[in-house]
């Protein structure tokens, strides 16, 4: 208060200085009171102005339907067509390699075993020459034994995410085959149907 009064005196100048001290004190106090009040009022205004305008992001969900082909349609798919050859070139021969390995299982009633590596490799290459001659290089069969855990985590992760999407009926499912290319270490989704 004392400091404000001094300021006021300086501000008021010679006109007020002529008036007696008691009046001056009274006047200055009134003015200061007024200032304080104005401050309070001003503060209120500020708090009102800084209040955030409430915004809410409204997402509207859209209902959609997708139709999937059966397993039979995928097996009948013509992977030798010139149109698919372009996709094979871009994404790698994984789809055809998987077909060869599945056929090995159907014939041998087992999967390639590291204990009979050389023997199984000859059988795999024979199947390759029979059903997909010229589509898959020999080097593609370098890693076909047992299951490599990081790849299991990737394919298993994708598969379980699809299961959760299907059960919760939320988000667009991948239609309809997911493949993992070991050369680029990339997974990709192919739409495969006859």
């Amino acid at each position: 208060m004392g400091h404000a009064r001094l300021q006021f005196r300086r501000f008021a100048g010679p006109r007020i200085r002529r008036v007696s001290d008691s009046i001056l004190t009274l006047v200055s106090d009134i003015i200061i009171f007024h200032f304080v009040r104005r401050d309070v009022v001003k503060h209120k205004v500020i708090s009102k102005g800084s209040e955030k305008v409430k915004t809410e992001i409204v997402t509207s969900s859209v209902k959609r339907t997708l139709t999937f082909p059966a397993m039979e349609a995928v097996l009948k798919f013509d992977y030798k067509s010139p149109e698919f050859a372009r996709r094979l070139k871009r994404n790698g021969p994984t789809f055809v390699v998987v077909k060869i390995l599945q056929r090995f299982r159907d014939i041998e009633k087992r999967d390639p075993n590291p204990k009979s590596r050389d023997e199984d490799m000859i059988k795999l290459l024979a199947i390759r020459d029979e059903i997909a001659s010229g589509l898959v290089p020999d080097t593609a069969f370098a890693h076909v034994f047992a299951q490599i855990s990081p790849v299991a985590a990737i394919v298993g992760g994708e598969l379980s995410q699809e299961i959760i999407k299907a059960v919760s009926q939320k988000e667009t499912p991948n239609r309809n085959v997911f493949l993992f290319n070991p050369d680029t270490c990339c997974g990709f989704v192919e739409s495969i149907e006859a």
Partner: protein
Amino acid sequence: MVENSGMELTEQETELYDRQIRLWGLESQKRIRGARILIAGLNGLGAEVAKNIILSGVKSVTLCDDRIVSETDFCSQFFVPHSSVGSNRAEASLVRAQALNPMVEIIIDKENVSEKSDEYFGQFDVVVVIEAGTEALVRIDNVCRSKNVKFFAGDLWGMHGYSFVDLQDHEYVE
């Protein structure tokens, strides 16, 4: 349909699944809570799928496998202990699978999935078939189509893997 399931989560479930409810919403979690899943073929890929599904909090998971644990399983099948070579793969996976989430019912089936009757698949909402022959895959897919069950297949040889999805006519929101 994409309608409400009408099932309420318990307080304990809401607490455990809190973070995934934030991710995909309460309604999704309720639907997941009601799902009965069959996972046939408990190799490394099957174990990964089973782990993720059990953690997500479904109603029940049936682990179906007639194969025995072999040394090649130790590359990636993290459910089976090394001492279990020679025992049934689904049975050997039970203890560690259940430890992930005690709130999910885990059922062990030691029979071959390709020898199951058509009715067997009708009791599930989702059927996942791993490590099966082509003939079995086609048959089970057709059975699932006739019973309106979501069908999934997948496999992994070394580093070559695939997953196949058949949801027939699937309604969803995005």
